[in-house]
């Protein structure tokens, strides 16, 4: 979009006002309202928070988009510089708040790496179980809202009903449901509660029929197929060039998952598969995430059956003072590659923490994915990108 159009939209003028302004310029065609500029968001039911998308439309066809983000910017990276490593740990939960456990895992592992310590095996297993549960919870929330965007309102309630079971496990484990702060640098603070394994196993038995239920509502549904097939297509090469990661990348046929490519925590010990799509359209992304939920169940099953005994906290000094140096560590969050680039100056506070948010980078692909589609597809594509504005804006 050119500067001029941005000016117009940022002044908040409707096209009618705009044409009024153009009265003095006779070279403008008389019927100039073919191009419509509408603001989707920041208050809009389908932008998943405070995302503002400026759409340039020809009728209903999208000619171009521009994302305006930052409405939820809290300066997490600046906060980090004024907190100790331990104090900053809860903050990362507030970025991708639907996958808080994953955020915590990435941060703790990055700092552990910087400290050059390793969490004990039992802690790693607990981390894997909780992170995979969180992945399922995140995908459930994505599925519900995505289906709601496309107009199917019922799956939302089903997914929230089943997500509750996961949140209950979190709550019993660490007392919090959403921003869990489940892990500590060096391991876990809490030992699993009595009955943890039983509850997780119950969930493993409980959940597969529920996935079938979601799929019964959507997968074969004609309208769902028409709304998702060949919508928001992004090729594998484009996805790589745009730095898109996570299920969006895998749906474009790139078989890449950090859990396999560069295993962290205990992932190298588990047997699971990486689903990939073929066309890189919305339907493939849907299918990839559905299969991922089942694969997560597989991982959890292996982890909960093979969970070792032992300590849950590694040998971490009381005051965390990593040596001077810098580290980049990334994990496969539900949305994609979540990376932490930490620079330490040897003090108790990080000199600089840079978060590489998957949602932020994935959102950049929105423009090329929706060009030429209709307004209705824009919400479908925003949904399928599975962005969380807390993470986009940080």
């Amino acid at each position, binding site marked *: 979009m050119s500067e001029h159009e941005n000016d117009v939209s940022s002044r908040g003028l409707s096209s009618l006002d705009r044409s009024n302004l153009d009265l003095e310029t006779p070279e403008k065609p008389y019927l100039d309202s073919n191009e419509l500029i509408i603001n989707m968001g920041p208050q809009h039911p389908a932008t998943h928070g405070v995302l503002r998308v400026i759409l340039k439309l020809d009728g209903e066809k999208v000619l171009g988009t521009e994302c305006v983000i930052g409405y939820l910017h809290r300066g997490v990276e600046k906060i980090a510089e004024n907190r100790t490593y331990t104090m900053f740990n809860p903050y990362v939960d507030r970025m991708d708040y639907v996958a808080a456990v994953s955020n915590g895992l990435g941060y703790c592992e990055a700092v552990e790496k910087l400290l050059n310590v390793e969490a004990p095996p039992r802690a790693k297993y607990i981390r894997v179980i909780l992170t995979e549960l969180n992945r399922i919870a995140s995908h459930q929330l994505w599925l519900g809202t995505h289906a709601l965007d496309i107009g*199917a309102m019922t799956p939302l309630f089903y997914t929230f009903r089943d997500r509750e079971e996961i949140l209950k496990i979190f709550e019993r484990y660490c007392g919090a449901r959403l921003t869990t702060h489940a892990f500590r640098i060096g391991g876990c603070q809490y030992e699993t509660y009595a009955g943890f394994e039983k509850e997780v196993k119950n969930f493993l038995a409980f959940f597969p029929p529920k996935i079938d239920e979601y799929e019964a509502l959507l997968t074969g549904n004609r309208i769902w197929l028409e709304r998702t097939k060949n919508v928001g297509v992004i090729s594998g090469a484009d996805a790589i060039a745009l730095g898109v990661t996570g299920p969006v990348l895998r749906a474009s046929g790139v078989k890449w998952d950090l859990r396999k490519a560069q295993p962290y925590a205990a992932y190298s010990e588990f047997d699971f598969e990486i689903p990939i799509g073929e066309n890189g359209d919305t339907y493939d992304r849907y299918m990839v995430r559905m299969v991922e939920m089942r694969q997560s169940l597989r991982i959890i099953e292996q982890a909960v059956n093979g969970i070792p005994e032992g300590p849950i906290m590694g040998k971490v000094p009381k005051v965390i003072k990593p040596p001077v140096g810098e580290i980049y560590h990334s994990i496969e969050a539900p949305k994609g590659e979540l990376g932490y680039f930490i620079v330490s100056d040897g003090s108790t506070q990080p000199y600089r923490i840079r978060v590489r948010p998957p949602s932020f980078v994935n959102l950049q692909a929105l423009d090329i994915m929706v060009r030429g589609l209709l307004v209705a597809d824009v919400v479908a594509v925003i949904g399928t990108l599975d962005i969380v504005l807390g993470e986009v804006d940080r």
Partner: protein
Amino acid sequence: MPNFIMSYLGSSVTPGEAGNQFWALMYVLIIFAGVSVAVMAMNWLERKALAHFQIRLGPMRVGPHGLLQPIADALKLMLKEDIIPAEADQFVFWVAPLIGLLASFTVYTVIPFGPSQAVSDMNIGILFMLGVSSLGVLGIVVAGWASNSHYPLIGALRSSAQMVSYEVAMGLAVVAAILMTSMKTGTGTLSMIGIVQSQQQQGIWFIFKFFPLGLIAFVIFAIAMIAETNRAPFDMAEAESELTAGYHTEYSGLRWSLFMLAEYAAMIAVSSIAVTLWLGGWMRPFPNLLHAPAWDFIFSFFPGLTFLALAAIALIGTARMPSHSFFRIQRIGLAVFAALLGFIALLLLVIAVAGRSADASLAARFNEGIGYVYWFVLKVAVFMYLFIWYRATWPRYRFDQLMKIGWKVMLPISLGVLMVTAIVGVLVK
């Protein structure tokens, strides 16, 4: 005055046809009130049914099981501040909901609840109905334009295109049914009452006529009528996840409620057309096969028994309410409601017994009329439930897909059905 009343009750034509202006007016009032109440009931039912589809409870606080919720909502909407956007076209913004409301309520003048239970029996009934209901789109278009905002404008454009294109398929499906009316008598009719009567004469609901032609035409109409009323999965005009609320984004309070009233009234209206054209209108099941007076007597118990069942459900609900003092008032309320339903049931049963004789006594005519209205409303209610069911189950179509279905699938099929019906009709004759 008594003469007025008796004169209509003694006649067998609609008040409009009889020139009975008093009763015509009465009917208009009754229908207006009845439809408004039906819309409120539908509102409650939709919220409850949708909630139960979605493992929720729905309204539970205002009245027992939220029974008074629609009333509370209506009050709230009436008292709400009436906001007209500063840049809106004031007059058009003001008049738009009225157009929609007018269109959907005018349709009821020709809907036959019984052979004489209608405001008027126009000989162009179905044509009038299609025409007037097509005026409803004007309200939407004008509302979208007058709001002077982009989302309503797009919603209005969508819905005008959608309604105009689905009207075509709808009209052709209707014509197929009208062709069927000419089968035995030789001349067809456009009159709504005439259509039902011809189904009676031919001894078949038109949905089963020339199987599967009638069924196909009916299905096309059933799909088109969802699109016509802007309901899921064709609720493009107000797709909340895309256009926030479509054409009524800028509306609030009473004006918004008028739009809702118009939408639900239109839903009931098109369902009534479908019932009239294909499902035998006011006729009870098997009126020709089981035509003995004994069967009449048995079927006349249905209304009373239905209300009895409703009363029983309400009673069970009363019994199942938690015995906490907090629920005492609700409990009493539900019990009173159950008692009310039971009383109505009793009344209906008494009428059924009293009116069993075939003479033209007042009770007999009452009994007859109740039977007609009961079966008609029951059939319409099935459609209303389907509307809710669709909404709970399906995602929303995209606009271009909707148009594609309308023009490339529904229109050819309905044209084909029309032609084949005409050919078959000639051959059979």
